């Protein structure tokens, strides 16, 4: 399998905090990678650096062989790298459909068209199909702010998918959800990953989810890669156990 995302020596310090402290990583096409690590390990900062939300102090990011370090976020998305946010981030006053329509229009370079009615744009069908894909066809016309947290998370996934990414970075898509809702969101993600062939990198705290979905688990700790390998290996890794202090890991081991 080809390497689609390659990270070399990525580093970002905030004063004395070494949020990301030299990360090297290669993600292969079609692979489902989970990134885990305790609070403050640098997971979100890592995503910020890769997606252009923050500039790294050092290091490079390659998407399908192209150096995208320092590119503006919108260009990175256009090159095929999309993300969602740890704190759900949608357009609250737009409908679910309109939320997804925007990236569809962007994909076609139609966001600057100022004369036709967006309500009649053919991309609406694509957006609707995307919403249906995440199980929200019935909520297409609801303003996002009136939807449940779980539904908003799914809208965000649909938005990211609508950019037609090669790689999708998901920052805790199940954060703050009730158990039933977690299953729905994660189940949807699993289906989408299987059917769309998008390479996914997922930050997640719930070990059940991680071990049931991921082909590969990367453990971050204090801004560095502590361990990297198939879920089985990670589960048995003594250093990882130590970092998590026996809690979740040992209990299930």
């Amino acid at each position: 399998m080809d390497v689609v995302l390659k990270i070399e020596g990525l580093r970002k310090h905030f004063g004395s905090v070494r949020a990301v402290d030299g990360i090297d990583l290669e993600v292969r096409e079609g692979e489902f990678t989970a990134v885990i690590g305790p609070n403050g390990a640098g997971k979100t900062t890592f995503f910020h650096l890769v997606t252009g939300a923050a500039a790294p102090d050092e290091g490079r990011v390659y998407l399908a062989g192209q150096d995208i370090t320092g590119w503006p976020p919108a260009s990175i998305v256009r090159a095929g790298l999309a993300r969602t946010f740890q704190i759900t981030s949608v357009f609250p006053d737009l409908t679910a459909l309109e939320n997804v329509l925007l990236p569809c229009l962007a994909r076609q370079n139609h966001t600057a068209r100022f004369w036709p009615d967006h309500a009649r744009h053919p991309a609406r069908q694509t957006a609707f199909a995307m919403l249906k894909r995440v199980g929200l066809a019935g909520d297409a016309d609801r303003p996002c702010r009136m939807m449940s947290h779980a539904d908003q998370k799914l809208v965000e996934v649909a938005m990211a998918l609508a950019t037609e990414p090669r790689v999708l970075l998901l920052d805790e898509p199940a954060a703050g959800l009730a158990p039933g809702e977690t299953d729905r969101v994660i189940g949807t993600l699993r289906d989408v990953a299987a059917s769309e062939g998008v390479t996914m990198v997922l930050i997640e705290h719930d070990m059940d989810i991680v071990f049931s979905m991921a082909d590969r688990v990367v453990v971050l700790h204090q801004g560095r890669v502590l361990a990297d390998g198939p879920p089985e290996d990670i589960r048995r890794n003594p250093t990882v156990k130590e970092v998590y202090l026996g809690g979740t890991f040992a209990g299930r081991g």
Partner: protein
Amino acid sequence: MDRSVVAWLVLLAAAAVLPLGLGEFHVHLLTEILILALFAAAFNLLFGYTGLLSFGQAAYFAVGAYTSALWLKGPWPSLPLALAVGALLAAAVALVVGYLCVRRDEIYFAMVTLAFGQLIFVVIWRWREVTGGSDGIGGIPRPPLHLGLAEVALAPTLHFYYFALAVVAAALYVLWRITRSPLGLTLQAVRDNARRVDYLGVPMGRYRLAAFTVSGLFCGLAGALFAPYQGTITPDLSDWMRSAEAVMMTLLGGPQVFGGPVLGAALMTLLKDFVASETEYWPLLVGTAVVLLVLFLPGGVGGALWAMKKQGTGQETAPARAGAEEAV
């Protein structure tokens, strides 16, 4: 046909018939309402649709007005040309200023636009040879309009009113189309969550700049109409007080419906005219009225009407989404 289209056509017909029963003074007042309605609607493309509170839109209104005045006093006095040149120059200035402002948010954006607005005010004030300084420019003509073989005089108040109505109606139609277009949706997304659009492949700064430039264009067009309407213009056109007027008209009418600023311009102009004839403290009274409205009717008069209509039809769509009554 869309119901809002019908409503606009009815309003247009009313605007066409109304002046026939009115005296010269009131036709003049109606013309001012038209011009300010365009000014407020152009402001609201930024405020209501893109989420940017500009406190400097009077500058573009003034650039349009001065350009139009100079053009009409120049060698080729033609109103359509004066309007085109005025609007385009205003858009050009907005493009430059916007480039320097659009990265700021909220109050910082308001302050920077205010500062540039005042800068343009000072330029107009000091550049005597061109702008006439504090005396302004007087004797701005209203040359007749050439329509093929026919020639229509625009000097009569009623004729100019119809000319202004045609221009403002066309401009509002274009603005309305913009708000419903893919660009309009993009601007509303920027308003809702500016930092998010980049991560969907939409460079936010560029779209804010587009909104700022288009707003400047239409503010300039309103100003370009204002110069021949008034016949005399002075630097206070570009003063921040006039920028604040755009804000107040919009808040009065409601920024969340397309017609809100138009309604606000009408209310404010009539209120001002009525109160000013009674007392010289009209700014105080009008200001108080706006404050009360904003406190007790946050969506403005237009927003309240819209909400009532929505309740009547049982739709849950927010007023923020003017003209989005379509089904998939």
